[in-house]
């Protein structure tokens, strides 16, 4: 069973990591969680990002949620903000797309073009 004692140990262990984290500007992953996003499957996408970021111990990445991003038919929508760069919007995101986005975009800095809103709109009209 998980105990609060373990949490106390985590606290002691992680204080250093936190101080390190304060110095670097974070990459933000923002998942749209309005009604249309949730109905379209935003929750498992959010969880997949959280799991992937935790698994790889990416301490400079913050996963966040927001309300309506605006285009219901393209939900689930995920926006990625890298410091100093323009935001990239991914549409119709599913959990199996998350690994690639994390590796190629968040870790290596190259947006996954095929998943972006620009690519989608250009190929589905």
């Amino acid at each position: 069973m998980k105990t609060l004692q373990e949490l106390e140990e985590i606290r002691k262990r992680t204080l250093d990591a936190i101080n390190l984290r304060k110095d670097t500007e974070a990459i933000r992953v923002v998942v749209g969680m309005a009604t249309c996003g949730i109905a379209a499957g935003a929750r498992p996408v959010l969880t997949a990002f959280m799991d992937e970021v935790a698994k790889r111990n990416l301490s400079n990445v913050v996963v966040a949620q927001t309300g309506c991003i605006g285009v219901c038919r393209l939900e689930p929508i995920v926006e990625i903000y890298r410091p100093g760069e323009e935001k990239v919007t991914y549409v119709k995101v599913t959990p199996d797309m998350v690994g690639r986005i994390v590796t190629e975009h968040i870790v290596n800095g190259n947006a996954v073009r095929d998943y972006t809103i620009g690519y989608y709109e250009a190929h589905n009209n």
Partner: protein
Amino acid sequence: MMMKEISLHVLDIIQNSIAAQASFIEICIEISHECDKLLVSVSDNGCGMDEQLRKRVENPYATSRTTRKVGLGIPMFKASAEAAGGMFSLTSKLGEGTCIQAGYKLSHWDCPPLGDIAQTVYTSVICNENINFLYLHRVDAREFRFDTREIRRTLGEDVPFNLPEVMAWIKEYLAEGIHTLYGGA
């Protein structure tokens, strides 16, 4: 558009509380097999609604958002409970907070599964550290209680919830707690 699980409605209703600037959100799930009932409530101490808005939001044409003219979350939740032989109630007071309750008849053909409530609580807690959450889940005589204020006290002010180790702890704690409600050791 529809929600496949009750826990997705809960997630959606929590988003309303977040938008209402709540600093405390209580999620309560009560399942009684004897009464053939599943009760869900989400209460918050957010901005609340005035009487006029409160009356309007139960039908699908009210929203204070500007991106779309209709609010759908509350009407969908209400419709899902009522379709499953249940009830729905919304109480709110401007400046004090809001409480939304829905009841389902468990044996009803149209009663959706509760679904992954742990995932709803987990994502909400980790992504909204500034909000205190109390999650109570009762199944017949068993109860599981998860209070983020207790976690905050243990971790201190400096350790965020979104550290991998803390996330893993919270995830497992929730999974174990819910598992025991349904007969697991």
